[in-house]
């Protein structure tokens, strides 16, 4: 269950997310869907120049075409599901559902990842089964529980039948509609969605008043006792909050017996040939979804492993994890704090953290400081809802496990350090002097 949204925000969302719009009508989804400026405090210009593929340069006409396609529900079999159905700009380019709802009200197995900063992802999807934004487009279009087109040819035929598109494709690509060009146009639009102007980015750029003291303490915990930085990697040239890798943190382990499931997956894939489309179907439509990256690599160490997601705009992209199983940021941090859920494939970096309540609050304050200005109001409301809920409702909290479960309190879990030392936000390099 997700928390009830306030009336104001519901109205806002309803007016902003337009279910269907025609090119000529151009009612459009409003300014929140416009290409973002590159003049953002933390914009990584060098990295940006690297990630635009040479065979698909950004042009205004291509971006406009891609945007039209992104909001066009005619790309789906029943004409009701567009890209923004699950990647709504007003909801941080997600749908704020645990797992996404596609054609004929079918629910998939995965939580919709955001388009914001997706251009910097080395691979796309939770399990990295697509190597680029272009390659990602085909998955949802032809997946039977998402947009439900029989084939990419059907999608091309449908787009061809719309006169305005024919002309636009001629102008942009110099020939008739092909699926590869549909992919290029949508990817070009998605590459305009940047999020690097949060209060945190301004803080890093030199404004100490941009974030609260609580958020500063959270940033220190993020780098230290919380060990978050190890996977949600941030540095000035790659300010993405992801290591681009895949980790098993025990999310699927609640209800999956991995070994028989993995055998079943290998069996299914060996019979079907295991092409991209087959993997997509297993990932979205079956219980094998919980195997994560394993479906792509077939390597045991990737069982139950999912991509490290960016942390920006978390307060408008709830709920959390690949299956949307966590409602609040506190629940999510509780999951890490107790050392994930034990399973034979748990990543070796996932250990009990011994974070106190105050430290968790600071960490959430830091995460809240990663919100882009256009979402500030919505994020504030979500923060208030989550905060209120976290005072009484904490299903994932396990203080004993978080403290090293030896009954001796935090920081005392034996000489080999299952738990970090008490956190200070002083620079450790300056401690222990005269």
């Amino acid at each position: 269950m997700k928390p009830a949204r306030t009336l104001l925000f519901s109205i806002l969302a309803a007016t902003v997310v337009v279910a269907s719009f025609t090119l000529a009508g151009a009612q459009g989804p409003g300014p929140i869907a416009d290409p973002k400026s590159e003049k953002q405090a933390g914009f990584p210009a060098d990295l940006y120049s690297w990630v635009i593929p040479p065979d698909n340069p950004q042009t205004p006409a291509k971006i406009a075409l891609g945007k039209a396609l992104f909001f066009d529900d005619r790309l789906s079999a029943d004409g009701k599901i567009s890209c923004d159905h699950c990647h709504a700009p007003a909801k941080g380019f997600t749908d704020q559902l645990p797992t996404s709802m596609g054609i004929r009200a079918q629910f998939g197995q995965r939580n919709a990842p955001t388009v914001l900063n997706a251009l910097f992802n080395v691979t796309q999807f939770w399990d990295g089964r697509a190597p680029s934004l272009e390659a990602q487009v085909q998955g949802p279009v032809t997946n039977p529980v998402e947009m439900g087109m029989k084939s990419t040819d059907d999608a091309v035929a449908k787009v061809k039948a719309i006169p305005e598109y024919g002309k636009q494709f001629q102008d942009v690509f110099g020939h008739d509609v092909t699926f590869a060009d549909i992919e290029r146009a949508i990817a070009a639009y998605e590459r305009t969605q940047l999020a690097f102007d949060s209060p945190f980015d301004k803080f890093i750029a030199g404004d100490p008043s941009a974030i609260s003291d609580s958020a500063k303490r959270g940033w220190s915990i993020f780098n230290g006792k919380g060990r978050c930085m190890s996977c949600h990697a941030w540095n000035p040239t790659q300010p993405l909050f992801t290591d681009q890798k895949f980790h098993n943190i025990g999310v699927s382990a609640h209800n999956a017996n991995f070994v028989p499931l993995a055998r079943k997956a290998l069996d299914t894939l060996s019979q079907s040939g295991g092409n991209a489309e087959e993997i997509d179907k297993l990932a979205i439509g079956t219980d094998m979804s919980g195997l994560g990256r394993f479906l792509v690599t077939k390597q045991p160490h990737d069982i139950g492993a999912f991509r490290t997601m960016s942390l920006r705009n978390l307060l408008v992209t709830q709920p959390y994890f690949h299956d949307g199983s966590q409602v609040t940021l506190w629940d999510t941090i509780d999951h890490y704090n107790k050392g994930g859920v034990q399973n034979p494939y748990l990543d070796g970096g996932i250990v009990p953290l011994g974070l106190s309540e105050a430290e968790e609050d600071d960490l959430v304050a830091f995460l809240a400081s990663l919100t882009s200005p256009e979402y500030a109001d919505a994020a504030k409301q979500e923060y208030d809802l989550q905060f209120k809920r976290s005072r009484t409702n904490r299903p994932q909290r396990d203080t004993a496990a978080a403290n090293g479960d030896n009954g001796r309190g935090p920081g005392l879990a034996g000489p080999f350090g299952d738990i970090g030392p008490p956190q200070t936000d002083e620079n450790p390099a300056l401690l222990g002097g005269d």
Partner: protein
Amino acid sequence: MAARHKSVETKYMEDRDAALRGLRGLDRRTFLKVLAATTGAVMAKSLMPPHSFQLVEVANAAPDKTAGAAGMAGKPPFTFAYISDSHLYQRTLNQRFVRAVARAVDDVNALDPQPDFVLFGGDLAQLGRREELDLGMQLLAEVKAPVKMMVGEHDWFYDMGDAWQEMFGPPNYSFDWKGVHVVVLMSVHEKDFWTARKMTPAERMHTVAGLDNGIQSRFEVGDDERKWLAADLAKVPHTTPLLVFSHSPLYKYYRNWNFWTDDAEQVQAILKPYQHVTVIHGHTHQMLYNQIGNISFYGMLSTAWPWPYAPTGLPPLTIQMNRADPFDQFDGLGDGRINVRADGLADKIYSLWDRNPVTVKADYLVSHGKIARPPAPQFASY
């Protein structure tokens, strides 16, 4: 929703919680009974055609030119797995190393087809205490395949092997398996450095557990055991492939860390007449392989921690693995499998956790690196 599955690790942690939190701790018999009931239910074989979950490559390589007539026609090849160097402390101290062993047990239990046996490569305990060995025995009891035990110096030097031998029997023994003669050695004897210094058992153990001190002596198989080995091999024809398990490497790699067997040349001389000899050793906690004459050496991974490569003496055939990620407890660790081929040579698979597995083919070693070179890692080592 499927019934909640519990791994060996989960069950261990629950049992440990019960013990530590002063609840009614299960005694060992009840614990195992509960386990048997749950594992029986969840491990029931699926009705699918059995193909290996770990994608075992069927070793059907043609015998290489150096092999000669191996005299192994019609003998079935077989696979065994290993778990090694778990360095367990008593259970109240930490859970880190326990988690790792449990993971290894889950790992070898997931193999399909199951290995013929699982070798434990030594250093079950960290400080040779009975409660450490008990904990290890309890964890290894969950392995579905038969377990063969080998002793390491950490198991031995607190009470000079009393507890270990009481639990697991003699430290050196041999058996025949599908046409291969298997020898398990106790290769971590040391010359007496403790009596003259009036050391307590604990001091002796701590000295041996130290890596880089001048006090302890070097590991050796020793005179008595070399005599035993020669006598054991006297009745084995030279065409029979030999599989030798040893905790120390049986060659001289790096003296300061005791990655070393002082009488290695004498042991190798005993093995020299045999056409195919594969030595599988523990102790070094890293990907390590070597070829000396007719003998292929292969180091096992640890479940506890990876050692860096030593500053000198690394065998030139070894392709170093990357430095382990210090954030990731399991990186650079794992377990492994060995496929013994019809010609008596052995292909080895390093089942690294959190990394792709690496296969080291016998052909690579016996050809001294001319063919079947394993892939080089992407990044620098240490």
